[in-house]
């Protein structure tokens, strides 16, 4: 395309050369896509448009449906603890803190567990055990939540009650661990006061989120630069010294990100929590005491006999939950992606 005409009759070689240089414009590099490529682009773009529409619809629908209840309740939606939408008094002031309490309990247990396991896998484990442990942790993340719920309800709950009682006996001076109506000196005190609590629900959720947190932490820990590790060891550091000065500072972003990802998962957990708690509609910061609540458990509890207006209220509660997990997840992915080196893959 656009090649110079080198020879014309009656012109000298120099003339031809000058003319050819003058005519030598940059070749247009624009390529015309073939029909198959156009179809390919249209097809995949159509698929992603459908995905985009579905996902936007979910958000929009939540917003629109929830708006009806939100506009009826106004600001009291965030300050009312009761949930009686048909009489007009309803809000998430009880279930939102309940969700957060369960999630915080879960994360408090899960983070040391996940950190320890991740450190063991990346720093201490023999090579063969390492692969096995990675598989075990990934498998734990794949186990359905209803199975964890069964385990928590039938095995963990009866066995953890003495432990709850022990904490309540010795640490009740901390408001978090206080239990109303329990006195350690009463030998006839029934341990049922400790069942169905935030603490037990949090423990079960902790078992579900720690594999997720652990696998992210492990990934970041193993990426800690070998040169600096060996440098620290060569300077006489113990293994813990090396971990504290090299591995943990390097993996801090991944630790925070993994924790937040686990927190996002813990906030949205439904079935395991629903199986264990007995719902209450007031703010319940005493985590050992019977009775807890969360937004997702509220939805699962109430959707079936709900009037259209209550459905709208549940939508608004679901929207609040979604916004919360969204913020947590976006924070997590930003922190994780910043902590990693953005190496591109060239085979």
């Amino acid at each position, binding site marked *: 395309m656009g090649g110079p005409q080198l020879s014309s009759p009656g012109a000298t070689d120099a003339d031809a050369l000058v003319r050819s240089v003058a005519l030598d414009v940059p070749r247009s590099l624009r390529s015309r896509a073939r029909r198959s490529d156009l179809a390919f682009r249209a097809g995949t773009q159509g698929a992603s448009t*459908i995905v985009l529409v579905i*996902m936007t619809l979910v958000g929009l629908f939540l917003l629109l449906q929830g708006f009806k209840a939100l506009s009826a309740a106004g600001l009291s939606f965030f300050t009312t603890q009761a949930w009686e939408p048909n009489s007009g008094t309803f809000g998430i002031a009880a279930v939102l803190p309940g969700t957060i309490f369960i999630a915080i309990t879960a994360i408090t247990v899960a983070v040391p567990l996940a950190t*320890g396991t991740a*450190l063991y*896998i990346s720093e201490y484990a023999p090579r063969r055990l390492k692969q096995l442990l990675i598989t075990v942790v990934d498998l734990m993340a794949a186990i359905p939540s209803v199975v*964890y*719920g069964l385990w928590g309800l039938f095995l963990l709950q009866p066995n953890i009650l003495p432990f709850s009682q022990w904490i309540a006996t010795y640490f009740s001076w901390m408001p978090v661990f206080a239990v109303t109506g329990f006195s350690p000196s009463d030998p006839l005190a029934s341990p049922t006061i400790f069942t169905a609590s935030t603490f037990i629900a949090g423990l079960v959720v902790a078992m579900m989120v720690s594999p997720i947190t652990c696998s992210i932490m492990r990934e970041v820990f193993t990426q800690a630069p070998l040169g600096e590790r060996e440098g620290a060891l060569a300077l006489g550091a113990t293994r813990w010294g090396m971990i504290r000065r090299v591995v943990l500072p390097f993996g801090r972003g991944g630790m925070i990100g993994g924790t937040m990802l686990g927190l996002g998962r813990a906030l949205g957990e439904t*079935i395991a929590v629903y199986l264990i708690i007995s719902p209450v509609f007031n703010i319940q910061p005493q985590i050992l005491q019977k009775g807890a609540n969360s937004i997702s458990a509220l939805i699962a509890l109430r959707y079936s006999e709900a009037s259209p207006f209550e459905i709208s209220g549940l939508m608004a509660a*679901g929207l609040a939950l979604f916004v919360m997990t969204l913020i947590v997840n976006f924070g997590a992915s930003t922190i994780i992606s910043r902590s990693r080196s953005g190496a591109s893959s*060239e085979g």
Partner: protein
Amino acid sequence: MTILTERVAHGKTTTVIVPGDAPTTPEVRRSVGVIRRTDMYSLVGSAAASIALTTWLFTQLRVFQGALGFVAVAFLLFLSIYSAVVRFDETDLAVRDRIVAVLVHAVAFVLPLVLVIVVVYTFGRGTDALSHLNFFTHDMSQTGPLDPITSGGIIHAAVGTLIMITMALAISIPLGIASAVFLSEFPGRFSRLVRTVVEAMTALPSIVAGLFVYATIILTLGFERSGFAASLAITVMMLPIIIRSADVVLRLVPGNLKEASLALGSTKWRTVWSVTLPTARSGLTTAVILGTARGIGETSPVLLTAGLTTYLNVNPFSGPMVSLPLATFSFVKSPEPSMISRGFGSAAVLMVLVLVLFLVARLIGGRGPGVLTERQRKRRTTQSRQDAYRFRARELGIAGPGTSRRRERRGRAHTAEPERSAS
């Protein structure tokens, strides 16, 4: 200086000269391992001391009770005794190192232990139901809440799970893979938007996905609760997971492979179809299977949209349909022991399903992008050799083996090969 040895090899003499006195014994390889004998002594000794002390506390003084308490007290005692013992002949730094090592080992023990307990407990409580054949072949329509375990089963839930997940996959695999390909192949403002929205939607709690389908399909559009509605809810939940992990896998495909294909003149569509997707096949399969495992195990979206039935229903478009997790959930809400063991039985079946999916994903996804198995590599080599032979034959103007029309066309599509065989 002493002459240590004279070795004769291939008729040449090698003389090794070693400074210093000749050692009288053969050299022993020095151990560079970190475990010394004293370490083992202090570990075992502290463990024995702590167990003995705890037993004394529990049996004689009776300060604490319970198996869990025993383990906790014994562990705390072990830590303090061990640190005291190590302090005898180590510095503070080393003591801290040892204590952290013990703590990390102990913590790492917990998660696998929990997994084993969960699996064993579920199967243990489920054996009562699993050992009866009717559990796998009957539904619950003829069985009341008080009937013994010998009647009724979970065939309706198993069939329901299979139908729901098949429908969900039929929607989410084509949509998910196609949009993941779009995200990685056509970067731009639109794909950035799609990626952000998809990433946001991975945060969607599963119950909210269920609530969305419940409010749109069932309340607004007026359909009844059905398997189809449930599979839509599962799809809404699974799509972002599949797209996100497929996107990650596709981005791992080496750029120079794609560029090589494009430079040889193939179209973008051809490049994706015969280079990018085959290279990422194992990763894509893993992404889909792990998404499936999540989708199969979810209870809450199904709870809101599928309804509850005791009958076997194979029509996903009409009538309620139940899935395994939902059946588990409704079984254990009953106080009857037979119902609870049915619940554990169906949880065990569900877990076997997830375990199998997980193992398959492991087997397929163990390799990186483009890494072939032995058999695949052999097949690829044979095909390449045949291609070379065919091109050579065409150059020489003779009919090669197997030059059917189909092969001709395929040879033209791989525009790469003639150049190579000519050089």
